Each structure stands twice: as structure tokens, then as C-alpha cells.
């Protein structure tokens, strides 16, 4: 299988793996990620469907950056997860996949995860002076005020998370 081939080719790159209903997921160390992408690109996974992230607040490292690849020949799908500590930069895939451009900007905008090597890493959805990153678990759902004008900083009071205290 593919994950075994990745393991054989790039020993130590795959930290964890699982499969659910035929979809394979591999957890890859951030510093080996570009090698893995080069390998699976050669294997035929040449469409980057989406880049997203998960905020697992209590876990260390805090974030998972999730990449979805599609093999256009075999129609197989592969999900790659990158554990990412807060403030650490994930390697950008824009040079290889054009679709990574806006997807990485969206992740940067909503989770505050920077991408090293991105040509224009600016906010995509929120306005330029928006404070904070709204899809982080500790972001207050209503932003604190009608137009989110306050500088709410990196961490927020737990009671601010609910709209109906």
C-alpha cells in the first residue's frame, strides 16, 4: 500500500497512520512534509483538494494542518496531517500546487498558522485589521462586540466563549 511505500522510501517520515472506509490518513512530521509531497506527487496524487486545520486546544502541539490529495488516475484519496505547534510555520505548497494559494491563506486567516514560502500570506476572508483568528477554539463566538474592533489578543477569557452566559 501507499503508506508502506512512503515508509520504505522515506523512513521516519510517517509518525502515525490509519484508514477509515478506504480513505488513508498519514501523520507526517513537518520537516519531512515536502519530501513526502514530492513522493506522492510522483505516485500520482497530483490534485490538492483542500487545506484545512484543526485546533485541538489542549493537545501539544496544538494544531493539525490537514491536506487532502486526490490521485487523478486511480481516484484514490490521501489525507496528510501535520502536527503544528502554535506559532510554528508549515511549509507552503504553492510552488507545487496552485490550489494551495488561497487554501493556505484561508488557514492563515482563520487559524493563524503561517506558511513558510507563501508568496502573499495575507487574510483571505476577514478584513485586514480583524483581531485574532476566528476558528481557534478560544476565540469568542461573537467577537466581543458588533464589529470585532477590540484587540482581543492571543488568548481569551473562557467565559467569553459562550454567547448566553
Amino acid at each position, binding site marked *: 500500500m501507499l503508506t508502506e511505500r512512503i515508509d520504505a522510501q522515506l523512513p521516519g517520515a510517517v509518525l502515525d497512520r490509519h484508514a477509515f472506509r478506504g480513505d488513508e490518513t498519514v501523520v507526517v512530521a513537518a520537516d519531512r512534509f515536502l519530501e513526502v509531497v514530492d513522493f506522492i506527487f510522483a505516485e500520482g496524487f497530483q490534485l490538492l483538494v483542500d487545506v484545512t486545520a484543526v485546533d485541538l486546544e489542549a493537545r501539544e502541539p496544538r494544531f493539525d494542518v490537514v491536506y487532502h490529495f486526490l490521485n487523478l488516475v486511480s481516484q484514490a484519496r490521501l489525507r496528510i496531517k501535520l502536527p503544528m505547534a502554535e506559532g510554528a510555520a508549515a511549509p507552503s505548497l504553492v510552488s507545487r500546487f496552485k490550489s494551495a494559494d488561497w487554501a493556505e491563506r484561508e488557514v492563515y486567516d482563520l487559524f493563524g498558522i503561517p506558511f513558510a514560502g507563501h508568496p502573499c500570506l495575507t487574510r483571505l476572508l476577514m478584513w485586514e485589521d480583524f483581531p485574532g483568528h476566528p476558528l481557534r477554539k478560544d476565540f469568542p463566538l461573537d*467577537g466581543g462586540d458588533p464589529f*470585532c474592533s477590540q484587540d482581543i489578543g492571543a488568548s481569551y477569557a473562557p467565559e467569553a466563549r459562550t454567547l448566553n452566559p
Partner: protein
Amino acid sequence: MGNLNLDDSVMTTRLDSVVNWARKNSLWPLPFGTACCAIEFMSMMASRYDFSRFGAEALRFSPRQSDMLLVLGTITNKQAPVLRQIYAQMAEPKWVVAVGVCASSGGMYRTYATLQGIDRVVPVDVYVPGCPPRPETMIYGVMELQKKITRETLMARKEHIERFYESLARQEERQRAQGLSSHQAVREMVLEAGAAGGQQIW
């Protein structure tokens, strides 16, 4: 010449009544569709509900050619200055219908991104509740607008629209003076209105 009986051929009325009668029966809607209310709106315009019966047949997708703004869906904070500009560009006299709870009050989206009711940034004449409202509800809303048009005077409508233009001039002055974007200027105006105990900036 025999006896000319004017009673049968002349009717006296007020200018307001006759102009408003024409206005209410020839509304030109601009559908500003941003969410699922716009899908219900398509149904409202199509043959089953046939909104043409109420004189609002000519849909225009340019604000310059329309006088009834139907805000069909969620308006985000980022879109608030865009909505103001579209309303400013419409032909006068003009009316606004906030269709659905999102446009009326933010609805279920009490979030960082959603404008909590378009009446904060543009004057609204009729609010249509529902999520989304059925086509009958939207038709009833426009019928209420027609009743409202019947009752209003020409001067009242003119002054109503001028108040909005004054707020737009204040917004543009703020942008020029402080070098702000339209979004920043509208945001500051909403926050100032909120600090003063109000909600509306027009």
C-alpha cells in the same frame, strides 16, 4: 355645444395619492441575494407565485434601474459598506425590504462576521420574518410596503432618503479625513452609535 357635464370626466385628488398609486404599482425590485432567501425569491418570481401580479415584474440587477431593494440573506460586516453603496446608487424614490431574519436582525448568526441587522447601515421599510420566509410571506411583506407607500407623503420619502445621503457624506468625510477604508469608517460609526445608545448610523 350642448351642456358639458364635467362631473363624469374629471376626478379631483391629491398629488401624493395619485403619484403614490403609480409608485406602489410599478416597483422595480433589485434582488440583493446572499443566502437561501434568494432561492425563495426565485420561487416568488416564478409562475406559481407570480409576483408580477403586484406590478413588480421588471427585475433589474443594476441598482441604477431599480427602486425596491430586497435584501435576501445574511449580510456580513465586510459587506456592510457595499450594501450602503448599492442603496445610494439606486434610483429615487427607493424602498428597502429586509427579507428573512438574517437581514432583519442577524438571525441565528450572532457571530464575529455577521452584521446584526441591515437597519444599522441602511433605512429599512419592511421586515419580513422567516428562515427563510415562504414566498407568500415575502409577497405579504411587499403588499405591506405598498400600503406604506399609499400612506406616505412625497416630501416624507424625500427627506427620509436625504437623511441617508447625509450619513453617507459623514462616512466619506471620515474616510477622507482619517484615511480609513469604507469598512473601517462604517464600523466606527456603528460603534459610536452603539456607545450613544442607538444602533443606526443613518
